[in-house]
């Protein structure tokens, strides 16, 4: 996993609530058998029309907006568990998604792929959208070590929560699987003492 520590970037605003993973990556693109190349189909049906021409009114096709941070409405990533959604966001180049809350499975998938799902208050989310509306080149700094999010235009710094273990993983690029493999003795001991009739 690619480590994540600190980033200063402009941000792409997507003030839509309940963005589901079917929009992030439609099911017809889930037939790939590797993790690569999903970025070109990120938000495919919002981004391109039936003739595969870019839809001008969609934010990713608007040259005014760019950056490695996606700012999204509440409940981002709801629906299907497809990790392809996180792969598509990462492959496109997003390292941080900011929202007032995330769907649980998506949040886990993002963290497992070096993408920080950063939760801010609904008020702050509105402020961020307003900042970008006034100045699309506005930049924001995400400092994972300090757990701060800074609006470089207003100078406002807010702290965000992330659990200590996941923070260490992101900063160092560790996968959960490395940790779990290191717990093998405890797993063996658990299996040995567990009542096994439930699986007979």
């Amino acid at each position: 996993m690619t480590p994540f520590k600190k980033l200063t970037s402009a941000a792409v605003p997507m003030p839509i609530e309940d963005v589901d993973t079917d929009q992030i990556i439609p099911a017809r693109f889930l037939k790939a058998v590797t993790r690569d190349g999903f970025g070109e189909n990120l938000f495919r049906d919002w981004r391109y029309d039936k003739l595969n021409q870019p839809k001008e009114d969609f934010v990713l096709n608007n040259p005014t907006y760019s950056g490695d941070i996606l700012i999204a409405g509440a409940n981002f990533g709801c629906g299907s568990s497809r990790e392809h959604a996180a792969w598509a966001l990462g492959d496109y180049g997003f390292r941080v998604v900011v929202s007032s809350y995330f769907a649980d499975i998506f949040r886990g998938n993002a963290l497992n792929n070096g993408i920080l799902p950063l939760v801010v208050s609904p008020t702050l989310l509105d402020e961020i959208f307003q900042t970008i509306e006034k100045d699309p080149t506005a930049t924001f700094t995400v400092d994972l070590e300090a757990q701060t999010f800074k609006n470089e235009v207003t100078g406002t710094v807010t702290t965000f929560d992330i659990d200590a273990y996941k923070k260490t993983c992101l900063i160092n690029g560790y996968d959960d699987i490395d940790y779990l493999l290191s717990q093998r003795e405890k797993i063996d001991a658990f299996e040995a003492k567990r009542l096994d009739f439930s699986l007979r």
Partner: protein
Amino acid sequence: MAKTLFDKVWDAHVVTQVEGGNQVLYIDRHLIHEVTSPQAFNGLRKRGIPLLRKDRIVATADHNVPTINQHKPISEPLSAKQVKMLTDNCAEFGVELYGLGHPYQGIVHVIGPELGITRPGITMVCGDSHTSTHGAFGAVAFGIGTSQVEQVMATQCLLLTKPKSMRINVEGELAPGVSAKDIILYVISQIGTGGGTGYFVEYAGSAIRSLSMEGRMTVCNMSIEMGARGGLIAPDQTTFDYLEGREFSPKGKDWDEAVAHWKTLPSEADATFDAELHFKAADISPMVTYGTNPGMGMGVQENIPVHSDIHGDAGLAKAMKYMGLEKGQPLNQMPIDYVFIGSCTNSRIEDLRAVVNLVGDRKVADTVTAIVVPGSQQVSKQAIAEGLDQKLIAAGFEFREAGCSACLGMNEDKVPAGKYCVSTSNRTFEGRQGQGARTILASPLTAAAAAITGRVTDVRELI
């Protein structure tokens, strides 16, 4: 402290605590399918590690498979490749595969319960969000991403923080024409598509207790549609009766021991939940959805709201544009084009029986394409044994072979752009049933009624 059903099952599977509140949770059963497993197998191969417990994994092909001519090679090359890769991976790693042509093949959330792989008190995962279905048995079952599929393959464990607990009580008797699907569509319409985020839900109350196992599976299946990590229902005699004698259910002395253990699982009377909601069965009528997420639902006789606090007015407006509908309009009596009866929500034998009973001697409207896709080979076999297939075909339905089909349109079963489909599946997202397709979620009874009349219909008028 008094424990809930969820606490009892979860806590019994904690291997160890990790800094920051994470826990290593042991997973008893792992179901895999062709779409979310190839990258996990690749990961194992790259790391050079084997499966820790191959006897805990069962595989099937469901998402991509055609529902016509399954005995022939899959014609769509990418689907064929993905299904072949599942076959090859299972052979290489020694995983039991119920692939195309196997008598146990079917939608992963249909076959687990019908084979007795699902059972109370276990932890169960699958790279599919509707894994919550298995919670109907009192299992802690939830969907995971592909990185986690790989973790379970390698270590039989996951690193997780324990979700908060919520109890949803539904009390009273359901009116005729109102079923399990209507309960869950109603609940989601009340709390929204994010209302359960962060929670594991226990469904309780007399209306839930009165449901069959199949109805309970329908309810738990859609837990994810309110954002919940999973949903579960306390095991009881209905649960035990369903499981006894199934292929992989415990037998003899093992069965007696298992049932004795399962009886200890229900939440204690004084257990408390982080959140608790109460609904009355009497308030629930046959439900339909009108928007682009499963929370945008209403009673079939109601009008689409003109304003929504839950979905936001912008969200509602966006949904109306996609659906080709207007705020404030009714859906009842609106002409529809397709009916899909299937998916892990409603493709079990009871669903098919309910449809056949309602249809009786009536015919599918000329303007409607109606397909019935059984959830598994076993469901299909049972339907044929009961003559349900012939009755459906005589009425004008297509009777297909088992798979996920038009729930997500990964195979050929898609709804064309702009067409309205009354569907027994679980999601109304834009493009879910095909690019531009417009989905109206409903129960099997309401879907059957729409097939007959060619319109969104209050099924109570046909009973």
